[in-house]
């Protein structure tokens, strides 16, 4: 009875989280209509203005409409973080899943490579890669590169989980049965192992999204994320630097509140995925 009640409460929270996520995604996708002036227009006579009818969240320090920037930044972070999560999950599935399935030397080798990646100071690596990039890239290209780098570097933890899971499946009865009936190699992996890894893959995918959103935010705060004038949550959070009190300009906290809402909503939705994976 108690379990049913808890499950019911969780379902309400999950429903609420889904609604919030849909609302945030919906508004960000409607940015072109809701904030037609765009994220780059500088209202220089109204730089650093507080909220008004013309600028609902005021303007930033160089006069850009903060509401428009929040909407466009949300769109960028929310569209590209799942893309990076998909990339990292795919790499994890191939590296971890195959290593676990093949076992032996292959598994050890794959895990050694994973450990090597895990030990890399990813922040410095990202800074180095950013420094090596061509200089004349458009802001859109810089967004794609930033999230691709996050995806390419963020697969390691998931790979370890998948390797363990695939290794367990390797000796499962249904796999032995399939092997006995003559299915071997990659065919066995794709037909029998991979579908059974799916719940773990889903969970890893969902877990990665908020992690990448936060990673981009960290990079943005360091000035190494998405190129100007394109906004992202990271670059929007940079405005909070040097703020000495919460009551000073509370509207500047909107991107932070949005980030917390989105990441929390993802976590609530994910709790279901983690249960499935378990």
């Amino acid at each position, binding site marked *: 009875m108690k379990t049913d009640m808890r499950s019911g409460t969780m379902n309400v929270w999950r429903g609420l989280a889904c609604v919030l996520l849909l609302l945030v995604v919906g508004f960000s996708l409607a940015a072109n209509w809701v904030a037609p002036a765009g994220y*780059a227009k*500088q209202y*220089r006579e109204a*730089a*650093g203005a507080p909220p008004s009818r013309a600028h609902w969240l005021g303007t930033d*320090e*160089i*006069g850009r409409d903060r509401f428009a920037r929040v909407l466009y930044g949300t769109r960028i972070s929310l569209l590209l973080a799942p893309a990076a999560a998909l990339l990292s999950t795919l790499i994890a599935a191939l590296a971890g899943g195959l290593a676990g399935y093949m076992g032996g030397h292959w598994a050890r080798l794959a895990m050694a490579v994973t450990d090597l990646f895990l030990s890399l100071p990813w922040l410095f690596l990202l*800074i*180095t890669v*950013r*420094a090596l990039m061509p*200089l*004349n*890239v*458009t*802001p859109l290209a810089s967004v794609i590169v930033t999230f691709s780098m996050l995806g390419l570097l963020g697969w390691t933890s998931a790979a370890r989980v998948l390797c363990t899971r695939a290794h367990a499946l390797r000796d499962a009865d249904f796999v032995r049965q399939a092997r006995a009936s003559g299915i071997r190699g990659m065919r066995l992996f794709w037909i029998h192992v991979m579908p059974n890894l799916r719940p773990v893959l889903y969970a890893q995918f969902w877990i990665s999204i908020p992690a990448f959103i936060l990673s981009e935010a960290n990079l943005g705060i*360091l*000035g*190494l994320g998405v*190129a*100007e*004038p394109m906004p992202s949550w990271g670059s929007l959070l*940079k405005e909070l*630097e*040097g703020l*000495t009190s919460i009551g000073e300009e509370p509207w500047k906290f909107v991107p932070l509140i949005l980030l917390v809402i989105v990441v929390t909503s993802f976590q609530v939705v994910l709790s279901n995925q983690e249960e499935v994976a378990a």
Partner: protein
Amino acid sequence: MTRHQDISLTWGPGRRVAVLCVAWVVAALWLLAGSAVAQGGGELRFCLRSEPKTFDPLRVEDEASESIRYLTGGVLVRMNRKTQALEPGLAQSWKVSKDGKRIVFKVRTGIAFSDGTPFSAEDVAYTVQQLMDPALHSPTGDAFRSGPGNVQTKVISPTQVAITFPAAVAGLDRLFDQVAIESAHSPKKEVAVLGPFTVVDYKPGASVLLKRNPKYWKTDEQGHKLPYLDSIELDIQPNRDVEMLRFKRGEIQLINALDSEYFDKLAATSPQQVHDAGPSLDSEQVWFNEVAKAPIPGYKREWFQSTNFRRAISRAINREDLSRIVFHGHAKPALGAVSPANKFWFNAKLKAQPYSPEAAMKLLQADGFRMDNGVLKDRGGNAVEFSIITNSGNKIREQMAVMIQDDLQKIGVHVNVVTLDFPSLIARMTQTFDYEAILLGLTNVDLDPNGQMNLWLSSSENHQWNPQQKAPETPWEAEIDKLMRAQASATAAAKRKEYFDRVQEIVLEQAPFIYLINKDALSAVSPAVHGASPVILHPQTFWNAERMTVGK
């Protein structure tokens, strides 16, 4: 007698006690006041933004070490940071020869180092010899190297010393403002100082404690011994936010080089604590890569090497907006290579180049550029697009770059703003030359044009737009080389100014550096500090530390 009796009658024993008490209190207050001025000026606290790299005054090259040298070192002549005029220090008088090669100092007598060792002309000769020792690699000494050959020092008498250089040194006497005299005989050398304070404690990564030098020679107009302060604690704190927070809590009493944003925040609550001393010597500028071997397309190099192109970009940047928005009005649009803050060397005849996209377009059209559907294209049909690099994490520069991006979009120029970590930026700027344009600042500490020799000579490493040229690649760079050398070897200040004025004109005409703004010298001083008078020159708030006191 009667009178005496009257007094006895009027002043009873109780009153006598009261009068004695009042007299005692007055005397105590007088003593306290006297000691506050002459001996008990309190402890001043402020932050150094980095660890001092050295305590050896001859090896100083960083700002933190320079601050300590300023507070502890005794110099022969001192430039008054407010009037920018030279004043006698350890030297009572001095004379520079007509050929600019020789200077004779007459030093004060009866002065001792902090450890009690007597000071004489011999110490000056010793310090100069140490300074000019090539093995020491002294950045201060480099300013004196005018030509090949050795520097000769001759102690004429215990109060007179002559220093002869192999070639003329322009502004020779001013250079001694940076030379803290060391003792020839003291076994402690670096510890024995002639300045107002002496280092008594150093906690790496935490703080440097300075105490009053009891042997300091200076007195104020009333004959009280200087400095008034008992001690100065310099906390090592690179984080500006923490520095600001500590100032607000009253834990520190001074902030140098305050950001405009912090300045305004502080001004909103405590306007009496902030000081805007006007434009400083520091500038922010953009320059294009004109290096022949740089890995950039040829057509872009052609744009960057065009005077009209550079001038057009300069005219299309709204400096007033940069000053008003990014610096909250605490900066002035820059006119050229020298800030108006440099009273003597600034060329006041230079005409401002106001923001004008129309004028910019005319200049571009003269070079064959044309507008095509809102995109500027060159003669070959290439769309004008380039990147501006600046250092990541510097909010001010990032904002400036984004505003420039927006300004240039109005003349059809597409700019990509790239922020890089500082080492990567420097590597591109000085080693690989793999960049198109850079936005950075220049911190000037020297008023004299000689301090800019390494910037303007075409053979120099710091000639950023096209460094280390074997021979000047353009006629105007050849002219600048000639003028800079001429001013360095001339001894008459008026002649030197004439040469350097022309350099400033050429720089404005050719725009190798597109000077954007001169930041104001902003600072904060706690009301507890008395006698502070912030100025634009380093060390801004504590240049007159010997006359400052800290009270409640």
